[in-house]
């Protein structure tokens, strides 16, 4: 009896201890593992809560960096910036944290912060160039502007630079003057071809009817159609100027959306991290 009782007690005790270690859902290590799992599931808010609730866990640079990334993914750029800026210069993640910090600043529209002495990391320099494009500050020379880029990126940035410095705008005054000379010509100048032709035909038709009414001495109709001719003529001059404004707004919009698309394709020049592989 004693032979079996002793090993039994030993095994029971051993199991008790080992299980209490294995399934303690709230141990520091298990909570970290669970938070990592949530992060990789892209459940960033819960991952951040879990990382921050475990005492001492967020002191780790890796965790602090992941918290910053989680905030960035959630679009909370201020909290992301705060977390990235807490990573010291002796950390393995320092350069990446700098890049992510500036990415957060860039995404929150705080372009001015990119013009600091800290931005020596290549991706920071690249973002800095883009900040010039989005900001209203004067651009540097083209050479300086494209210097952080290589290969195809350099060509693309050169194109963005040219479109920003010499946008293919249409003059509102020219459009209005052209429509003053020939109704509809201003619209054709702003590439609104069908509008231009219709404006020419309608104004011409109204003018012709007014002319025939004057010739036939139709007292009411001659003034009615003269008024309509003046209305269409004046409206077309105003419409041509407005069309030039719209054209210019489209030029700006296309440049902005092309730049945003390019930045998203390049993920704002930050590297791909392997936390979830």
């Amino acid at each position, binding site marked *: 009896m004693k032979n079996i009782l002793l090993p039994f007690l030993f*095994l029971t005790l051993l199991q008790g201890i080992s299980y209490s270690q294995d399934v303690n*859902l709230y141990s520091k290590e*298990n909570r970290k593992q669970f938070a990592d799992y949530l992060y990789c599931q892209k459940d960033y808010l819960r991952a951040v809560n879990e990382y921050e609730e475990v005492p001492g866990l967020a002191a780790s640079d890796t965790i602090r960096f992941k918290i910053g990334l989680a905030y960035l993914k959630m679009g909370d750029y201020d909290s992301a910036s705060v977390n990235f800026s807490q990573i010291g210069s002796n950390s393995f993640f320092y350069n990446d944290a700098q890049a992510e910090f500036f990415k957060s600043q860039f995404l929150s529209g705080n372009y001015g912060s990119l013009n600091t002495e800290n931005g020596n990391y290549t991706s920071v320099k690249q973002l800095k160039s883009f900040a010039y494009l989005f900001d209203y500050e004067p651009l540097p020379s083209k050479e300086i502007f494209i210097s952080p880029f290589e290969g195809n990126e350099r060509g693309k940035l050169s194109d963005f630079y040219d479109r920003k410095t010499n946008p293919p705008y249409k003059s509102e005054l020219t459009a209005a003057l052209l429509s003053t000379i020939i109704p509809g010509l201003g619209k054709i100048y702003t590439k609104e071809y069908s509008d231009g032709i219709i404006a020419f035909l309608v104004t011409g038709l109204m003018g012709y009817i007014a002319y025939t009414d004057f010739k036939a001495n139709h007292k009411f109709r001659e003034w009615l159609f003269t008024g309509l001719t003046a209305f269409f003529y004046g409206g077309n001059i105003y419409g041509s100027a407005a069309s030039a404004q719209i054209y210019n707004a489209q030029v700006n919009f296309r440049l902005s959306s092309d730049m945003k698309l390019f930045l998203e394709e390049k993920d704002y020049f930050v590297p791909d991290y392997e936390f979830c592989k």
Partner: protein
Amino acid sequence: MNSVNSTLIIILFAVTIIHPQNQLDEQLTKAEALYRNEEYFNSITELKRLIFFDSSKRYSYTANELIGECYEKGAKFTDALNYFARAEIAATNTDEIYNCRINTVKINILRRTTGRALSLLNALDKEPRFNGKKEEINYWKGWAYIFSDEWDKASDQFRRISKQNELGRFCDSIDNQKYSVTEAKILSFFIPGAGQIYTGNYLSGILSLGWNILWGYTTITAFQANRIFDGIMVAEFLWLRFYNGSNQNAEKFAIDKNLEISNNALIYLQNVYKGEKP
């Protein structure tokens, strides 16, 4: 001695199985309590923790299903669908599969993708293993038709459950209250303003009729006096404009009234109806 050995071995196994399971049971109980207290965010966190540590996948169905319900309560329908699909994969019997699919149907009804809800319900209807659930399937089909604003079809589904079904009678009454958009347009086509009067907009109908009589009279007298140009202008820019306006108003008023009736019916169902709802 043998019986003592056996007993000890059984106890040993019991410790092996029961001890860790209790931890996970407690976790599930905690998550369920949070769900009952309407703390859905925290409940989801604890259920996800349970799934993460449940290496035997024993709680996979329960936890995923409950996460789906939490997301549903928070109106995060896409996430809810995702977790009901996971629960269905983890389901171990027909009832669990059925429950997941009905939850998916309810989500589709709530987010008004009723075509998807109906196709899921038709698929359930065709499966022999769910033959015992016909009434319930008809019930949810009825709800899908309610949310797609087809009250007559909804009534048909509820009447299949029983001729005197409460929701069937309610859907019939709503269907009877609704205006026919085609009828309103036809009335206004023949008598301008009649469509508006049909939908209860008497003042608008009378004004419309008055304007049409005035411009119609002016047009006809112009033509009679050989003032052809004036006749064409008045007919084109005044009479036709008011005539078309009358037709368009008849259609708009009928659609607006029907929307009001449907919305009031849904509010009634939400606040007063005691039966099961999506």
